[in-house]
């Protein structure tokens, strides 16, 4: 057990012990140096150390070193002891040629362990060219300056000036551009800037100032001279229209500390030197920015965004009930004119109650432009059930890297909305506009369900389907039967008609035959047979001629038919006479002469009727 506990304890306490004695080994050197000017390179370590293995300084001229110095301090604060120790190795080097060189890390031993320092990058600037003493400008400035001739020495346009530096001279509309006012000075000291600073308004641009960092001076080689430089003002500019936009000059007023070179009055003056403060107006020159309009063919739903963006989005739910809220969250991330982005529109379907989008911005201004995220929350409440589709959300912007429009899309969702608890379509509203008190309608509701018995049939019961052949046959068969019936009946009628005509035609012949029989009987003096023959001749003739069935054969009938056929009244009288004479004579026998007369009369009558058109 003990064997295990000891390493455990060690592992717990050792780190803290070691931590208290953390070794820090660093190399320090100025970032920029000038050719031919010595500089120092320091290695500091906070422990007692030995065996410093300096790297190769082959890119630099080695002048001196290493000088070792060490310091230690101990302090008690609130009864707590803190001690520090510093061991410094100092080398003096000199830049040999201009360029950027890296001094490799050095190594050092502390308590037998080897530690490595950081490497150092040093930019070696070229040496100053022959100083140009532009006396005229100096004089000119002097005359403008009311500070007097005593304080003017060493201040010239070459000694101190402000440059206007723009990151790009040609930009696209809405593309960020960084404008920097940088102070260059050499041989003078700038004490401070006064409040009399006039920065132009940057009309035509949207300005986004960068946070002012602590002013740090850097050495920079410019126009053949090495200057101390400091950034005094930085801003991001977003051009708002295309064309050439001019930026006006900016005016700064700086207080300079100038060493006065004047007649030496006393030995002390000379010894300490004499400085005076000079106020000097500095002008940063104006510049012109060429702004190119965004190419034509802006996509639909162009957000106005210029830069690089990505977009993500999600929906809170796709299955919900009516009257419940649904949220779409969009997250636009990127760099560019984030502040000017239009929120993409969500095309909510009909029947959704929509609310204004909630936008949360989280921006950071950098020299590249504004970057960060823009979170947009869309809230909507569906009011009716159903299945709805939300089309994809489109966000179009101009990509400055690829110089073209790009469209980002997110989503495209289908929402299944179930019926809600309080669907507005089901709420009951009874409207009644009557004043009469008939039956007061308290509410409307559907009538009760049917509870009676049900009946069933076979699934494929025989039914006549409309337009089927069975249906058509139901019409055709009766039609055919009707046609057949019609033809049959017509033929029979025709046949009947033929019989009548035959009788009509043969009527005279039949009558003549009967008359002959009558004549024969007259010659034989057979009265009975004669009258019978005459009577039959008359009746048969009339029956055939007038197409009267034997059953309907009587005197009145015959007379009425003859009348209807418009036969002469005289002839009708004759017919009547013949018929009644023949009838009478049959039962009351008369003379022979009467027989002959009747015979004559009958044959004449038949002849006359034959000539009549009946």
């Amino acid at each position, binding site marked *: 057990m003990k064997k295990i506990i000891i390493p455990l304890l060690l592992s717990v306490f050792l780190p803290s012990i070691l931590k208290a004695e953390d070794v820090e080994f660093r190399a320090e050197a100025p970032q920029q140096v000038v050719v031919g000017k010595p500089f120092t390179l320091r290695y500091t370590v906070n422990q007692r150390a030995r065996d410093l293995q300096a790297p190769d300084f082959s890119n630099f001229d080695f002048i001196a070193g290493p000088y070792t110095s060490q310091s230690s301090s101990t302090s008690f604060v609130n009864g707590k002891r803190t001690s520090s120790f510093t061991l410094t190795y100092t080398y003096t080097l000199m830049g040999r040629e201009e360029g950027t060189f890296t001094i490799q890390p050095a190594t050092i031993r502390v308590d037998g362990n080897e530690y490595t320092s950081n490497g150092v990058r040093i930019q070696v600037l070229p040496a100053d060219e022959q100083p140009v003493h532009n006396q005229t400008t100096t004089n000119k400035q002097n005359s403008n300056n009311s500070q007097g001739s005593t304080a003017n020495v060493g201040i010239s346009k070459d000694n101190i000036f402000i440059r206007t530096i723009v990151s790009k001279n040609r930009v696209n509309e809405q593309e960020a551009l960084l404008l920097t006012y940088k102070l260059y000075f050499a041989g003078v000291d700038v004490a401070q800037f006064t409040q009399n600073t006039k920065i132009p308004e940057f009309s035509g641009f949207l300005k986004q100032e960068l946070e002012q960092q602590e002013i740090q001076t850097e050495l920079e080689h410019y126009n053949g001279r090495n200057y101390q430089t400091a950034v005094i003002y930085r801003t991001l500019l977003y051009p708002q229209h295309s064309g050439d936009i001019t930026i006006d000059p900016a005016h700064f007023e700086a207080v300079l500390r100038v060493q006065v070179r004047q007649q030496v009055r006393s030995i002390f003056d000379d010894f300490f030197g004499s400085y005076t403060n000079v106020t000097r107006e500095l002008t940063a020159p104006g510049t012109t920015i060429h702004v190119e309009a965004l190419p034509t063919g802006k996509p639909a739903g162009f957000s106005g965004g210029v830069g690089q963006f990505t977009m993500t989005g999600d929906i809170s739910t796709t299955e919900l009930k009516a009257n419940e809220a649904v949220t779409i969250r969009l997250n636009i991330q990127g760099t560019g004119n984030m502040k000017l982005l239009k929120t993409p529109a969500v095309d909510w379907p009909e029947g959704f109650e929509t609310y204004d989008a909630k936008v949360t911005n989280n921006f950071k201004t950098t020299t590249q432009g504004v970057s960060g995220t823009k979170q947009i929350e869309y809230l909507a409440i569906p009011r009716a059930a159903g299945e709805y589709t939300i089309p994809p959300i489109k966000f179009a912007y101009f990509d400055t890297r690829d110089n073209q429009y790009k469209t980002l899309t997110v989503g495209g969702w289908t929402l299944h909305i179930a*019926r809600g608890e309080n669907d507005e379509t*089901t709420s009951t509203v009874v409207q009644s506009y009557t004043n009469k008190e008939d039956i007061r309608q308290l509410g409307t509701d559907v009538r009760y369900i049917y509870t009676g018995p*049900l009946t069933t049939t076979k*699934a494929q019961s025989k039914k006549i389907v*409309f337009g089927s052949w069975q249906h058509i046959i139901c019409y055709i068969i009766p039609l055919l039967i009707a046609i057949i019936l*019609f033809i049959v009946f017509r033929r029979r009628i025709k046949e009947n008609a033929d019989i009548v005509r035959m009788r009509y035609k043969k009527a005279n012949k039949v009558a003549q035959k009967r008359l002959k029989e009558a004549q024969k009987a007259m010659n034989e003096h057979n009265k009975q047979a004669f009258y019978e023959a005459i009577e039959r001749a008359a009746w048969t003739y009339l029956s055939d001629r007038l197409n009267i069935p034997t059953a309907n054969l009587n005197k009145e009938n015959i007379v009425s038919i003859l009348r209807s056929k418009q036969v002469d009244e005289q002839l009708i009288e004759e017919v009547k006479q013949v018929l009644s004479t023949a009838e009478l004579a049959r039962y009351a026998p008369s003379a022979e002469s009467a027989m002959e007369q009747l015979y004559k009369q009958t044959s004449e009558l038949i002849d006359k009727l034959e000539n009549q058109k009946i």
Partner: protein
Amino acid sequence: MTSIKNIRNIIILLTCFLLTHNMNAQVSSDFQTANSYYDEQEYDKALEAYQLCLQENEGVVLSRKSKAQVYYNMGNAYFKQGNLSQSILAYERCLRLQPRNKDAKYNLEIAQSRIIDNLTDNSSFFVAKWAKAIRDLLTEQAWIVVSICLFLMTLIGILVFALSHYVSLRKASFHTAWIALILSIISFFNAGSLHHRDTDRTEAIITQGILNAKSSPDKSGTDLFTLHEGTKVNIKETLGDWCNISVGNNEGWIQTSHVERI
């Protein structure tokens, strides 16, 4: 040999009858369960049971009238659930099978009074309304039978007219014939109209809560007008997932999944 066959046939017929009787009993019990669910306000279960009643069960289906009653009850259940479009659909189906069901008419009116779209009957012309009312008086089968009977009457009338000698009889039969012929033709067209309605099923009910009719069968089409749930539309043609509908004087395209044919 033949006698054995006859006996077998008789046995088959008897079993068929018995089966039918059993089925009838089963359907009735289903229907009663559904009704009791309805009373207990368990409309989901009631609707399921009603659906069971409507299904064909071993060659036996509900009679037309009973089917209409089941649809009527389903309409009520949907109405109680608040599903207006389905309840309207069920009432319409009921009325299709049984055009003179007064309860269904009344309930349909109530359901329609609660939908959002103000319904204007497509055939607002009164003659067309009457024609429709007359058409709905009988079923397709009945109209077919009536039409055939009237046609027979026409034929008899013509025969009598053509063959009779008696003037009055001829007159009477002539008038009978032409009146019967016209009525037969009307009945024929009524049957045809009903047949067309039942087979093509052009009438449909919107089931989607709210939707926009488009100018073309495409989601990018211009929105023409808005329709709400429960509105009755006429489907004129279908093209893929889309159908051309008309409501009143409006015409537009909507997705087929948003409507249900009656």
